[in-house]
């Protein structure tokens, strides 16, 4: 460690100042608008916002989908991550690459694929009608299910990566030892794997939850104006009504939700001793 703090600060400050001026300041001012009214600082913006049934509905729906996506991603993520750790290192590397591949691609492209898949002339419907499960194609787009699927696909790689890096730290003989001692897979998971990987779960869970909360393209394209989420509602309020107060309120809510989720997950993780 070098001791010259002045030198250190000189190196670190440009980045900090840049972020402060160009980012924190404008965002901070915007968020403060949520607290303002003619008489100064109030919570009126929030009260007005939550008093409308539409906003309540959108808030609950966003929360619900966030939790569902994070939960499902965790379940599938654990299964996938565990399976990946059982592979040879070379295969593991390849599969890992395939898992992060989607992250590199624009969300626009990834979401658009779902239109082709879930549309009434898409493959899911073709299969359903082909198998005789229904006479006519069923409505899959513009539903919460479509948004759920889109978000799950978008963020699952993040969960898998977090869990994988946590799992790689489990000593290789712990699980076989547990099995030898008579534990079934259920016990192995809850008593061995989960406690040892809880930090990965916290990171992954937060990333997925926050991502699902703040995604824009996927709910916009797959949900439309019937399945509004907080982010698409925000966009609507700004673009159609120039309603910046609502926008700031929603922004604040989203940030608070992310922080809370993170804190909650951390708390659960540390409690599980």
């Amino acid at each position, binding site marked *: 460690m070098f001791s010259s703090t002045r030198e250190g600060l000189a190196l670190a400050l440009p980045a900090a100042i840049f972020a402060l001026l160009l980012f924190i300041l404008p965002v901070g001012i915007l968020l403060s608008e949520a607290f303002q009214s003619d008489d100064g600082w109030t919570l009126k913006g929030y009260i007005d916002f939550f008093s409308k049934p539409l906003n309540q509905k959108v808030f609950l729906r966003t929360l619900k989908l966030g939790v569902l996506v994070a939960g499902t991603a965790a379940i599938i993520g654990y299964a996938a991550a565990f399976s990946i750790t059982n592979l040879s290192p070379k295969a593991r590397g390849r599969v890992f690459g395939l898992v992060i591949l989607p992250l590199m691609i624009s969300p626009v492209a990834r979401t658009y694929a779902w239109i082709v898949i879930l549309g009434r002339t898409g493959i899911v419907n073709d299969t359903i009608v082909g198998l005789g499960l229904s006479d006519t194609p069923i*409505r899959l787009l513009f539903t919460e299910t479509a948004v759920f699927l889109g978000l799950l696909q978008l963020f699952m790689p993040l969960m898998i990566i977090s869990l994988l890096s946590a799992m790689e730290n489990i000593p290789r003989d712990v699980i076989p030892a547990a099995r030898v001692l008579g534990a079934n897979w259920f016990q192995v998971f809850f008593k061995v794997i989960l406690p040892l990987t809880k930090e990965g779960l916290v990171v992954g869970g937060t990333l997925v939850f926050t991502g699902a909360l703040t995604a824009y393209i996927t709910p916009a394209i797959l949900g439309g104006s019937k399945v509004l989420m907080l982010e698409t509602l925000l966009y609507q309020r700004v673009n159609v009504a120039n309603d910046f107060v609502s926008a700031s309120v929603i922004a604040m809510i989203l940030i608070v939700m992310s922080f809370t989720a993170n804190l909650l997950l951390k708390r659960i993780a540390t409690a599980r001793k």
Partner: protein
Amino acid sequence: MKNLISLSAMCCALATSAFAQEKTLTISTYSFAQDAYKAALYDPFEAICDCNLVIETGNSVERMSKIEANAADPVIDMAVISSQDALALSRKDLLSPLDLAQLSNHSKLYPAAQDPIGGNMAVGYTFYASSIVYRTDLVEINSWADLLDDKLAGNVSLPNITGTQGPLTLMMLNKAAGNEGTDFTSVISDIGTHADDIVTFYSRSSELAQLMNQEEVIAAPVGRFAWSRFKSSPLPFAWAEPKEGQAGGMNVMIMTKGNGNEELAHMFMNYWLSTEVQTRVAEALIDSPANSEVVVSDEVADNLTYGADLINSLSILSPADIIVNREAWVEQWNTEVIR
């Protein structure tokens, strides 16, 4: 090193903006038929004026909001929007009255298009009828009430209340229920009870064209300006002539206040209103003319909202009525319909 990069970035940015300032006209318009407009209007105009057209597209309401947001330093010089959005902007004092002396084609317009919102703040450049487009192979539409009927349940889309077509649809549904006037409370409640049967509420006509082509929806109310998309589709569509008649509206041109480009803007508007351009646009089946001197063949006329008789038969919602009631409609809509 860092300074060099930032400097070069800034230079590039400044250079592009300086370049852009050389005789550019920035216009805001609907996203429809931009290719056709390029051939019929933008390219010929750029040749005449020796200038550069920068075009922003989107739906009327969103573009109106943008104009409002940029009021202090207008980015847009002139725009074409719905008459009610124009009235809203005018009341917020964001528009400049048009100088009729620079619009030589003004006298050729139909009377209704000459001063639609008062104070010469806007001129109409196109009329459109609104009716229901539907799949002839799957359903028949005879009345606006069919939209909420069981035969379309799960296969219909309605325009979002925030768009231009929204209130028009409400008006016609109201008519179908036997009411007149602008009290749409019962209509909105009705839509609310059927909300699950409606696939989605579209915000842009282009969105609807996609929905129809993807077969997510088999019928929906829309403006005539979107008809060419359905006509050229491989799927069989027809334009309904419901017993309550068709709704209609007029889109207008406006000029932002203090944009500094008034002369070029007027030149462009006048050109757009000229018989020559209005005929070209009509023949390309994009927009129906507001210039009364335009003459088109019967075949073309069939696909447009053409002729004084048709225009006079349309049910119109006055822009003032829309503005007064819009907020109440949106409130009720958000409470009862969006679920």
